[in-house]
């Protein structure tokens, strides 16, 4: 439900980068999207097509999403485990003293010009 807002942010940053690099047209945008970033890539694509085509510099520009698997780290037994599979509780020692290592990214990796 918030993908359109995210798309406006991506467009703003891509246009800024295009301007800084004196780019005439952007053909592709590559995103790193974390598995637990709460973004649904399919919705992001739909919103992207609608919004990007309204911008001259982004007409027809493809959005590619690399999905970053989420991993959580356990402070007690120093192990790493899959966040989606186990949540916040460490499957090795049962500890709740854990934090997210990666998987929350909503990042523009690169643009193709």
């Amino acid at each position, binding site marked *: *439900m918030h993908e359109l*807002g995210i798309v406006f942010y991506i467009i703003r*940053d891509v246009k800024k980068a295009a301007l800084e690099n004196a780019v005439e047209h952007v053909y592709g945008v590559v995103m790193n999207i974390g598995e637990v970033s709460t973004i649904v890539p399919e919705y992001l694509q739909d919103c992207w097509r609608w919004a990007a085509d309204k911008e001259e510099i982004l007409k027809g520009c493809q959005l590619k999403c690399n999905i970053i698997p989420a991993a959580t780290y356990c402070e007690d037994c120093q192990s790493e485990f899959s966040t989606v599979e186990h949540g916040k509780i460490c499957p090795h020692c049962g500890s709740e003293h854990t934090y997210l290592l990666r998987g929350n990214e909503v*990042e523009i*990796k690169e643009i193709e*010009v």
Partner: protein
Amino acid sequence: MEEVKVIEIKKSIFEDNEKDADALRADLKRRGVYLLNLMSSPGSGKTTTLIQVINRIKDKIRVAVMEADIDSDVDAVKIKEATGIPSIQLHTGGMCHLDAEMTRQGLDNVDLADVDLVILENVGNLVCPAEFDTGSCRNAMILSVPEGHDKPLKYPLMFSICDVVVINKMDVLPYFDFDLEKCKEYIHMRNPKAQVIPICAKTGEGVDAFATWLLQEVNNWKNQ
């Protein structure tokens, strides 16, 4: 086709907003103005709760309200009529949340030299507002009994960023399968430090506790 060149960017799309938010917070600190970001689902009773709270604190501190909605100004008008304090309406232009820049633009319409507390009533939504730092000093949210005690499990980010969770509509508790203790447990799983305040905005029950917390917060912000 022309040759395609790749420009590496490697930048979180939230980065600019986080910088804007920190700058706004620093500015508010200098001016001695406390900004509360109040969030909830649509229909949880944000506006009714605000009216109750404001009427309890408006003689002690100077309050203003910014109402953010996708459209209409019913909430801003209602607040002004029921409390007499300055209340402005912001339209998000279809967006489901406010970011720091939109908040700053809204604050430009508030006479900051003449207020101690600005309450920002964010768009009714438990997802997007949680992702965008508005530049507020604290985040609070209202969860109402009919929504169910499992909401902290379904919207983890919202509950993990809130310093206070107000539980509204306690008067209808007998008619719903809402378990207050379970709800507290789930909230504390997301944020062990979150304060939980059960209220009934319609009757005013419990609202004093929320008002006391808010007065204390404003006082600390101005004096520390």
